[in-house]
């Protein structure tokens, strides 16, 4: 088998980004506010909610993939969407996997603040809108950790993405599923080439985020 053409490599890489970046953005957009909200407040049933989140954090991605597959299949509850074996299904699965991680880590970051933090800030007469801004600024390193973790999980996800995406050439094939496929086919050279691109991608993205994180420490 010939090594995939440059055009194919670019196509797979771009699709990987087109799936992973929206998945990251959506899980952050939903997860960060939820994590902050839960972290700040005490409410009855909080223990149950936090346990649920911790369970979600440890949930095997392949189980999440199975649930999404089942939900989107033709005979499933959302079969009418015809999302199975499409990019939307892959993004959905990625978001479901990353969301508990984002919420859990953000929760922990908020929890690391002094108990009295909110009271102190309130007693200084800081208006409500600014209190949220201050909070985010205080925990920004923790939030960055959530982003990096979510990004890592999303970029490396292969099982769930294979299950709901189908690894269809030209449609839902991304770097991770392509690597799996070529390895199964015995085409290790090709698999290594794709792996190099994937690792390179992770290094660049993680490196950027880490630079931002470390600059916050000076």
């Amino acid at each position: 088998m010939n090594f995939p053409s440059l055009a194919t490599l670019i196509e797979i890489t771009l699709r990987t980004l087109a799936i992973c970046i929206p998945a990251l953005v959506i899980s952050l957009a939903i997860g960060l506010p939820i994590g902050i909200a839960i972290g700040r407040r005490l409410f009855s049933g909080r223990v149950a909610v936090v346990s649920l989140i911790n369970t979600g954090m440890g949930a095997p991605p392949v189980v999440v993939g199975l649930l999404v597959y089942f939900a989107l299949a033709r005979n499933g509850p959302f079969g009418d969407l015809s999302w199975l074996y499409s990019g939307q299904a892959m993004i959905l699965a990625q978001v479901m996997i990353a969301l508990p991680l984002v919420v859990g880590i953000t929760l922990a970051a908020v929890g690391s603040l002094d108990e009295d933090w909110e009271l102190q800030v309130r007693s200084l007469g800081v208006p409500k809108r600014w209190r949220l801004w201050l909070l985010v600024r205080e925990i920004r390193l923790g939030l960055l950790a959530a982003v990096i973790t979510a990004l890592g999980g999303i970029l490396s996800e292969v099982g769930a993405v294979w299950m709901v995406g189908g690894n269809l050439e030209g449609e839902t094939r991304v770097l991770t599923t392509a690597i799996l496929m070529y390895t199964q086919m015995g085409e290790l050279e090709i698999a290594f080439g794709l792996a190099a691109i994937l690792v390179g991608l992770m290094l660049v993205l993680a490196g950027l985020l880490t630079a931002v994180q470390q600059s916050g420490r000076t």
Partner: protein
Amino acid sequence: MTRPRILHLLIAALATAACSDPIADEGDLLLVTTTSLRDSGLLSALLPVFQERTGVRPQVIAVGSGAALRMGRDGNADVLLTHAPEGEEALVASGAAVSRTTVMENYFVIAGPPEDPAGVRAEKSPADAIRRIADASAQFISRGDDSGTHRREVALLREAGLDPAGGWPGFVSSGAGMGQTLQIAGERRAYVLSDIGTFLAFRERIELESLSQPAPSLRNVYSVLRIAPDRFDPARAERAAQFEAFMIDAKTQRQIADFGRERFGRPLFRPLHLKSPSGS
């Protein structure tokens, strides 16, 4: 038991495990086969009988035909059980395989949605059927993984005068095993080329029908290849020979002839070494 004794036993066990040959560690016979064969369930029926009769433990790895042939070429297997005659013959010619023995056969099917928008049912010739699909720009899910089934697709496409990589808008390559490819076809209401065994196993679930008729270009022959051992290990070669003998043994061949009848109402394979007609 005192603590030093437990420690001794532990060390002895570890040492034994460490000393054994790494390949032999995983079983007494490394059998490489295709995913479609594994998915058919035939091996699950035959291998326990083999193990009981000979005491040899088979370790099964299922990959696409292309990968299987490569593993044979690289000496990473003891026996192959595949259905890619050209590649198999090349393996024998190169000396990587010591022998090739045909075991059984069946026919590929072109499956598709019962409403058959491309009108495949009307064609007797598989190549014409494929051309109909292409002309209708209907969805076709290709294996795309260099497996035996994939190679058959390519052969049919060539016979139909079409681009082996498809070339029409509905042609989608899954790069996956037969089961996954069939599920994708079912989900998409698409056409697909499949071996009969896997198709029958998935038919109800995916709600697709077999639309083709048996023809020479769909014939699928399964063979056992004994791989030349790269180390002098008479025990392994002996076990490989035992497996080959087992597969063409009368009892096994009768078992093959009946396999699938209970589940699908018809057998999946036709054995090639039965002396008397099995009355299928």
